[in-house]
């Protein structure tokens, strides 16, 4: 559904927009608040939307590529393998990642490391209270030479966009990201510009209780596939961190371990992961449970169900499976759902957190293993219905 929409846009804009190279975009960082230079890559690294879809990877290649990325991240950030894996999951599931925690636990470091391990364009936007939407999306300016307005792409025109301290900007600026994140395009002056693929926003934010923050609007939060809390490292990791990070940042030693094309292939692999009917039923049951829960004022949206399933597919692929298990859904459910739901006031006053509510729902919703007799029928059904989305990309 989401996919269909994007497909139609692609059909509407069959040709690449021929935007200026990413390098220009980075230089146009109007705020000058630090647009980090990523591994310099030519315009060719940008995936052409009109080109044939990258072929899915072999299982072994996929495994080694993911291993390389994770190892690279883990050399920089000690003791946060789970967070690293989830970040990679979100990347492969074509989602956006929100890193939320108190200052100084390595949010930005994780975002930068993830960006660096991939040989692709990266831009960084430091969200400040005076940042404007045009700084993010780009602006049409009058070219004296050609006597025409020309579009100067904003910072979002990159494969990976790091939005640092996203909740320090006003809600107006935050909203500028809505269209890019959901539809992977920017519309300025009535003209739509396609963003690069793969496109991922990695945003960091402080908890909203901190001073000088604007809370993210619900619509914006809903567009992030997952929210990760880094959390403090354990004792040994912290010791090791003090040891290794004394002189230089380990970030400088990180080099790209996969190319953007490889990532695109990995994404294609993830898309082909099979989702059986019981899994869909289970996912829907989870969503309905959040909407019917008495402790929640706002349950999970259908989009979040879709993103939950995509994240589960990426998890399954990272596990080396070509089909989704309920375990995959369970493992990402908390990260995917917790930031979208809003607690009821009564539940909040009794000390419940979104995480605890999601956990209690997971402990309550039956996985439905008992329906063994219906298994054969359901399986064949699932096969038919599941075959459609997985064949769709190739049919494009």
């Amino acid at each position: 559904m989401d996919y269909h929409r994007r497909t139609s846009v692609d059909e509407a804009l069959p040709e690449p927009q021929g935007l200026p190279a990413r390098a220009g975009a980075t230089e146009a960082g109007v705020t000058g608040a630090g647009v980090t230079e990523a591994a310099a890559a030519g315009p060719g690294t940008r995936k052409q939307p009109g080109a044939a879809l990258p072929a899915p990877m072999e299982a072994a290649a996929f495994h080694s590529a993911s291993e390389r990325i994770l190892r690279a991240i883990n050399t920089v950030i000690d003791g946060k393998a789970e967070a690293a894996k989830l970040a990679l999951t979100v990347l492969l599931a074509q989602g956006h990642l929100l890193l939320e925690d108190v200052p100084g636990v390595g949010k930005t470091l994780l975002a930068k490391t993830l960006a660096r391990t991939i040989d692709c364009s990266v831009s960084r936007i430091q969200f400040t209270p005076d940042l404007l939407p045009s700084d993010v999306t780009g602006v049409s300016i009058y070219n004296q030479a050609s006597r025409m307005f020309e579009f100067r792409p904003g910072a979002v025109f990159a494969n990976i966009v790091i939005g640092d301290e996203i909740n320090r900007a006003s809600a107006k600026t935050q909203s500028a990201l809505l269209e890019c994140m959901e539809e992977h395009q920017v519309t300025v002056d009535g003209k739509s510009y396609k963003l690069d693929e793969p496109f991922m926003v990695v945003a960091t934010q402080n908890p909203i209780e901190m001073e000088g923050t604007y809370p993210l609007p619900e619509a914006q939060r809903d567009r992030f596939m997952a929210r990760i809390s880094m959390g403090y490292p354990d004792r040994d990791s912290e010791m090791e961190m003090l040891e290794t990070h004394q002189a230089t940042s380990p970030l400088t030693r990180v080099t790209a371990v996969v190319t953007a094309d490889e990532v695109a292939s990995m994404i294609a692999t993830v898309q082909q992961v099979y989702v059986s009917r019981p899994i869909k039923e289970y996912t829907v049951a989870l969503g309905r449970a959040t909407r019917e829960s008495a402790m929640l004022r706002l349950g999970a949206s259908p989009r979040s169900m879709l993103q939950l399933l995509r994240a589960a597919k990426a998890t399954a692929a990272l596990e080396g499976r070509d089909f989704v298990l309920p375990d995959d859904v369970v493992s990402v459910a908390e990260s995917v759902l917790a930031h979208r739901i809003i607690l009821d006031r009564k539940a909040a006053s009794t000390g419940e957190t979104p995480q605890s509510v999601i956990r209690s729902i997971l402990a309550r919703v039956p996985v439905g293993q008992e329906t063994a007799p219906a298994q054969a029928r359901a399986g064949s059904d699932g096969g038919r219905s599941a075959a459609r989305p997985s064949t769709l990309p190739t049919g494009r």
Partner: protein
Amino acid sequence: MTLTPQRSKAPGPSAPEPGRPSVPVSGAAAGPKGAGVEPWAMGLAVAVAVAGAALGLNGVLRGWAWYPAALTTVFAVALAMAGLRALRLRGVLVGAGGFVALALVLTFTFFRQHSIAGFIPSGDTMAQLLRYLRRASETVLAESSPVAPNAGIVLLVCGVLGLVVILVDALAVPLALPATSGLGILAILVVPAMVKPQSVGWLGFTGAAAGYLMILASSHWFHPNSRTRADTARNPGQLKRASLTGAMALVLTLLFQLAIPGFDQGIFPQGSRLNPWGSASGLNPMISLGNSLRSPTGDGRITYATNASQAPYLRSVTVDSFDGDAWAPDDRDASRQPGTGRMDPGPSPSVEEQVRVVTAVNTGQFTSPYLPAPYAPESVNGLTGRWSWDPATLSIKGVDTNSRDQQYVVASVAPKLTRAVLAESPDRTQAVPDTFTRVPASVPQIVRQTADTVTAGSRSNYAKAMAIQQYLRSAQFSYSLQSPVQGGYDGNGLSVLADFLAQKSGYCIHFSSAMAVMARLEGIPSRVAVGYAPGRATGSTVTIPGLGALPEYEVDARDAHAWPELYFQGVGWVAFEPTPSRGVVPGYATEPAARSGASTNENNDGLIPEDDLKPTAAPAPAPLPLPAAAGGDGSGSSLVPLLYGGGLLLVLLLLAAPALARGGLRRRRLKASGLSGAAAPAWAELRDLATDFGIPPHSSETPRHFSARLRGSAALGEPGGVDAPAHAAVASLSGDFERQRYGRPGTDSPAGNSLPDSLRGSPADRVELVRDAFRAHASWWTRWRATWLPPSLTARWRRRAWTPLRAVSVPAREAGRGAAESWSRVRDAVRRLRRS
């Protein structure tokens, strides 16, 4: 019953209306949309059901005279309710209308003279009603079935039937529980089933069943959920389900009646003589006599030891007045005298020779206000509680106690009777109270004629008595407990007596009352004694101080007996035995011509039988069973071991049922997984196996998580070493299941290609491997429970057992909510009113 599950299947948003009587919508919703013929059909069905069930009351009430009144009541109430429903009134109003209709029709039928305009109850009606109800209660307490249909009891029956109509209607229509409405009909059927010896009878049963089926057939119009109507019409499996349910009910009924003793004949709970009040209790021993005799088990056992040469009759009370529809002992409370230590038997008989007998009685469980004692008691010692005695009849009655658990010693004295003594007795009796001589007002002609015919050739009182006894003991008469019941003259009373003399078949009450009434017609004072025939020797002895060891006898309910006592001037009350095959004929009452050794009787004691000479009076150790039951008993005794064997088998089967069911389930699953290679059956088996051994899977648990938990628990042993194959088997089973359930169809490789060689076997082998590991690590109790009472199975059964309850709980909750809502609405209205 078949309708209920369908109801529960469609709980639907439309709440059943019972809970919200005050919500205005519900009344309209319950009524049929086009209120045409439906309410009338349902009303008719209810009326037919109740009236049909009431047919079974014939036999509880004598004759059919009461039935038109009952029919009027039932139809008036049912059709009144149907009419109100056709007007689409609310359910509550329809019910109230039913009550009003019942009150009006009862007033019209019974109190036309004492009401306003013939049908509106007034204060006078209430007074009459109380009088009728008192009469009804007297009837219930004092009379035995079939009772004469007096106005009181008929009013009661009509009122109850009308209430049942309202109940059945309420269950069937507004509550929408047509199957449950059978309870109301059953309530009617229970009465004849309990009271009548031949149970409900085919008439009542057929009528009730036909009406019930009509209710069920009409009920679908009134279903609160219109979707179900369409469903039932279209449902293809309905016939199959219905026939299956019916067949199962039939088989169970046939099997259970074999297993439960007492259900040996008839169409309804026949033979189950539920008697929670103990044996022979109540005010009227005459009522319980027939039932006691017919009771298959002898309860109310009394033991007694006596120094008489033969076991004496035990007499508890006499029936003196033969007026009225039903005879009952006169309690004679006015003339009773307290204290039983010394009793005066009245004017001393002129017979010189007296026979003194000492009898020690233990009443055990026998419960009656009257004390059984041999005639004629002179003193009774050892009683607990206060007792009184009546000088005229010498019956002993408890003032504030009864005969339960009494041990006492009776000293009785009786004149030594011979034929000669009796023959010399003058025919004119004096000083006998009028009660014993008064001829009943309306003696049927047949009784009078018979008495005249029988005694035609006799002159003295003794000769007349002997003639009557001889006539009753002749071959024309047969002893039968059943024929009075079948002939409709069970019980007692003058009309019964007429029937008995025409049919010439009955039991002791009929014989003794016939002789007593005929004796009175012939001018001999008479009364009927009720008590026990001589019992059987138990073989043990009881030692009484001063008398030494005495032989002990026992009697129980089956020995209950009635016999006539005739008064002879100068001799006193003399017992006779007109009942063939029961009791013993006293020596003085035997025909001299019929016997060879008459002279040997001269020395016999009064009331002491001559058993060796009279074949009919032979001491039958057990009283003869009723003829109809005799054949049944004979075959029953040969069936008993079979029955018990079958019962034992059934019990064993029942005990082994969980194990058998579990084993069958396992075999089916493993066979299925072996045939198709499907992993789901094997996985289900693994889950159940784990449940059996104390690691139940949670419903919200993923297969992988469950498998990990299983392997992490101690039940499967350590991962390495001996139990490694079991661990690998669990992992492979869960892997296979995951692949089949969640994997891409068609690409799975069921056998688990990454398995070690030892596990390449079928899923069945792997399940067995896991099972062995479980068994090896479980305690003996867990092992035993897993085999004989598998928790997986019991949990499933429990779930199924709760399902109907859950189905009920939803409407119940909705009803509660509706009630709360309406209550709050009422409260708000009241508040508004108060404020304004």
